[in-house]
């Protein structure tokens, strides 16, 4: 059996912290009080003009590598959809900027909110096949640079940020992580970049999420032969209050096991799960050997769920 461990979690948010109150003053006709009741979000973070996906990724990765010998990194995976340049891959640029080995695997994954869980699945497979031992996994996105100033839906939800961690083989564990993936490109138009701007059909994405995530959730419990009562933590993509409340309601998740931080940070797309994990670890809320379910969902439309043991 091969298991992996997630270490040295770090993150970097966009440097511009914006409160809903200040947004309300800027856009008085948006009725943001009502919007906030739905999203639950109090603050969003935007990248400054000088910050891009690579810069945020490097800032976060440097924190991750503070306590890890960078010579031992033999794989870099960057999850991003908003890199400044379509080519080359951000992962290759990270290799150079951080002075990492050149005998290294490096590639990007073009996914949004499901990206962190997808990346874990891919890295797990690379580890199983002995293609690498220590992966620097970075998620970094600057959605706000692609949001039209009049788009109330996107502007009040998305934040910019990057997260990073080291994924390594854990030979001591007898646990097998389980994954479940789902894609439905027919909903691609429901969260799309068109003519330089992101457009989201909130209701369609909402219906996709509230229908798909419970199915993936139940499948993974069956596949893993784990009972819902034995899951210690439920870490879902931090889409918004509306979505997470509904999922908690459908899946009957106890309040103390359903973690959120969307109110303080907003929706950081692929970074939302690792940022939440990082915060929970700092607060000592997740402990060794606890069973955690991670679930990401959104643009694609795409979803991924995995069951892991915290090591």
């Amino acid at each position, binding site marked *: 059996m091969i298991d992996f461990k997630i270490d040295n979690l770090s993150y970097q948010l966009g440097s511009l912290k914006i409160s809903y109150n200040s947004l309300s003053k800027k856009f008085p006709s948006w*009725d943001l009080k*009502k*919007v906030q009741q*739905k999203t639950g979000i109090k603050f969003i973070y935007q990248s400054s003009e000088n910050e891009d996906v690579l810069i945020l990724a490097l800032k976060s990765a440097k924190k991750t590598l503070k306590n890890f010998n960078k010579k031992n990194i033999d794989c870099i995976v960057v999850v991003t959809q908003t890199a400044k340049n379509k080519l080359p891959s951000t992962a290759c640029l990270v290799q150079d900027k951080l002075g990492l080995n050149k005998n290294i695997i490096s590639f990007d994954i073009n996914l949004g909110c499901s990206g962190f869980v997808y990346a874990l699945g891919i890295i797990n497979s690379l580890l199983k096949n002995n293609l690498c031992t220590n992966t620097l996994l970075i998620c970094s996105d600057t959605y706000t640079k692609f949001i039209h100033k009049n788009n*109330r*839906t996107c502007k*009040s939800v998305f934040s910019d940020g990057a997260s990073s961690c080291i994924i390594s083989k854990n030979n001591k564990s007898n646990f097998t992580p389980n994954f479940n993936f789902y894609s439905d490109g027919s909903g691609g138009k429901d969260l799309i970049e068109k003519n330089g701007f992101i457009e*989201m*059909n*909130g*209701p*369609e994405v*909402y*219906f996709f999420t*509230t*229908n798909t995530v419970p199915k993936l959730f139940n499948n993974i419990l069956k596949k893993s032969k784990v009972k819902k009562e034995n899951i210690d933590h439920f870490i879902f993509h931090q889409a918004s209050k*509306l979505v997470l409340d*509904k999922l908690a309601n459908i899946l009957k998740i106890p309040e103390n096991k359903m973690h959120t931080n969307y109110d303080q940070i907003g929706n950081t797309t692929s970074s939302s799960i690792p940022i939440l994990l990082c915060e929970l670890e700092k607060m000592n809320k997740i402990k060794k050997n606890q069973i955690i379910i991670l679930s990401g969902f959104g643009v694609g439309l795409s979803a991924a769920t995995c069951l892991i043991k915290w090591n």
Partner: protein
Amino acid sequence: MYLSDNDVIKCVSRALEINIKKININSSYKNIEKWDSLGHLNILTELDKSLKGKAFKLGALAKAYSIKEIVKVLKSHKLLK
């Protein structure tokens, strides 16, 4: 629980916080500025409350961007008076 055409109009009025006199059966996202993606989610939430949790089970409502379309979806699911 069933709704009438007028109940649907009331839901939209409450969801978008628009005077009911300014909404009628021909209202849609095209003639109401607040009826954007978030506005539509608010409408669905109001309908869900009135229908005791049945609206969020009807995927077709996600694409119903006018009062007429909402009424049509509810009718097809026998939720209209």
